[in-house]
């Protein structure tokens, strides 16, 4: 066994280890675990104010249409493509209004779009940092040019928000960016909030949205279910909901307070802390394997035999 090659190998392993030690330190510094940051931007959707006019949907598509590949979605009864009629969030639709009907007297509209989590699972799982959370505004944005299309963000998102363009040869992920790349820059608000005629969508800092939601809950306790959806769900979201019906009846999942990303990252970081464990494993295994091989060789030589190749 050549001593030189062995040294070189250990050097190489050490180098690879050092490179990966630096990376986790940076990432850990970036992600805060100290409760929600209420300075981030978000939206408060009040289902009791929504009249289901879908002006927000139209505004969203108009604003995002020239930004990238959003298409109008055809309904079966509309072969002339006069009307955009998406059935759900899709690779062409970033926000949608749905109607949930419990009985003729009990019903509610609901608006779906990205929840802009405080600790987003999609950002945590993306292998190439194509999902990023803005440090100041808290907006969760998608970087098309980094994305490899693995769809792990879709698996990870508890709200099923990121959508994939299944019908395209060159597909991408589509989800709400709170108009970060479009309307927000010039207007200081999101296109859907701007278009809403009944102020069912309020745009602003999370602390203001929460204060407003709490005010409405105290002023009109009989009008609402006493729950601000998104205040604590999965570590808190910047998109908040008020409604008259329990949130589960609006097709939104009932969720625990802890962010799944905290759980998974804790395990992953424990295993790979400083890349020590893998390097130690490799070192130990090398030691054992080389010792075994030397023993093998000396056994063979004492018997006057040809040694085994590895």
């Amino acid at each position, binding site marked *: 066994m050549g001593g030189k090659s062995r040294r070189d190998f250990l050097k190489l392993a050490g180098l690879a280890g050092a490179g990966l030690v630096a990376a986790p330190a940076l990432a850990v510094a970036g992600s805060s675990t100290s409760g929600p940051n209420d300075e981030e931007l978000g939206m408060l959707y009040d289902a009791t104010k929504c009249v289901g006019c879908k002006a927000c949907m139209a505004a969203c598509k108009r604003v995002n249409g020239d930004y990238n590949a959003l298409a109008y979605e055809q309904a079966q009864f509309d072969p002339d493509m006069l009307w955009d009629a998406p059935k759900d969030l899709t690779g062409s639709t970033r926000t949608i209004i749905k109607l949930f009907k419990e009985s003729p007297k009990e019903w509610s509209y609901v608006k779906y779009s990205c929840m802009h989590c405080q600790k987003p699972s999609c950002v945590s799982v993306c292998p190439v940092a194509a999902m990023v959370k803005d440090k100041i505004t808290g907006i969760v944005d998608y970087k098309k040019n980094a*994305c490899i299309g693995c769809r792990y963000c879709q698996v990870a998102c508890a709200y099923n928000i990121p959508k994939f363009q299944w019908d395209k040869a060159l597909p991408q992920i589509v989800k709400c960016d709170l108009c970060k790349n479009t309307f927000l820059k010039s207007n200081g608000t999101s296109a859907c909030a701007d278009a809403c005629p009944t102020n069912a969508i309020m745009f602003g800092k999370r602390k203001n949205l929460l204060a407003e939601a709490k005010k409405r809950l105290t002023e009109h306790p009989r009008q609402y279910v006493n729950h601000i959806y998104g205040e604590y769900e999965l570590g808190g979201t910047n998109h908040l909901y008020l409604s008259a019906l329990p949130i589960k009846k609006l097709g939104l999942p009932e969720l625990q307070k802890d962010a799944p990303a905290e759980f998974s990252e804790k395990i*992953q970081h424990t295993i790979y802390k400083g890349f020590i464990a893998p390097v130690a494993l490799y070192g130990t295994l090398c030691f054992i394997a080389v010792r075994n091989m030397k023993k093998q060789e000396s056994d063979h030589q004492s018997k006057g035999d040809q040694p085994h190749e590895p």
Partner: protein
Amino acid sequence: MSHDEFQVHRAKILTPSFWVLLTLTLIGFALIAVRFIWGIGAVSNMNDGYPWGIWITYDVATGTAIACGGYAVAILVYIRNKMHYHPLIRSAVLTSLFGYGLAGLSVMVDVGRPWNAYNFFIPSQWQINSAMFEVALCVMAYTTVLAIEFLPAVLSRLQQTNWNSARTFLDRHHGRFGLDTEIILAKLEKLRQWALWVQPKLDKVLIFIIVLGITLPTMHQSSLGSLMLIASTKLHPLWHTGFLPLLFLINCLFIGYSIAILESIISSYAFKRPFESEQLTGLASITPYLTTIWLSVMVGDLIWRGQLGNALSLDFYSGFFLLEFGLVASGSIILLFRRNRQSMRWLFVTAVLIVLGGALYRFNVYLIGFNPGQGWRYFPSLAELMITVGIVAFEILAYKVLVKLFPVLPRLHGHEEPASVKA
């Protein structure tokens, strides 16, 4: 150094099964072409609720476990110093190489924007919180390691050849395609010289590559379990646990040993060679230990999380859990008896049971126990399945061809050499 332990399997390459496998391969690859022209939706039933279908579940999550034969046998030979298993290693490494290489190919078919995959090599894009990042880098590195591990077989073949078939081919087509026999033969001779030159150098560092080939699967097989940790709201509580990484690691080990047994029995049968009975009995005595640990961790975890009642409730999820559990447990119980471990029939049956149970566990975690809610459904489409079948067919096809070209299979009676027997 001698390579006498292995030999080229001398047999016809173009057998009827070759043509069947080739047809399946071509159908699969034609459908892959369809996917790249008209999008993933054109061939697959995957949807926004089930963004990972059969390709990730079988080809990647399960396929790489089935490809863990090389990993499992390498641990036995190089770490536990059981050199008498060495004759099994080359065919195990070759199947591992195909398993991993084709898992990589499947991923490239599955991901929507493969042209951006270069981002894995750009440090500023690295996202080390992502288990997927770890899996991707490790799988790429391990595939390279496996290719290097297989290199000695290619090199020794190159050294021994005298290019007879190339010579005949060139003589027959002399003057056509603008080929000059002499120049090509000179180049081939240079290749042979290079093989002679590089072999001893490779032999010196090979052990470090091999150990890397043990470290990397330990890392990414556990990370394949970590991948689903994030899906705490979608993966059924029977399978969603902090022990996923550990369960996946042990799972790939017992699948690895069982697959090594299956491969050996099937290739002995198919190539009409005597069974490697002594080694197989030894391998089969390892699996029950691993499965016992695995099943204990699983049950202990279920009790600790208060899910045992759920596991025995006999609903849809409980049914699949019990099936997975039963397959692995029954295979292991049969193997506890020495008499069964010495019977080729029982070795085969138990290995099949354990591989099926272990694979079902991975299906349960990635697909069957996964429920995104909101009425989403998924069952793979025919075209989607045929792509997977095509890739698997290609794997078997290439294995069958390569063992007839390179010294891969154990030399017959090789295990009787006193030098390689070690208690």
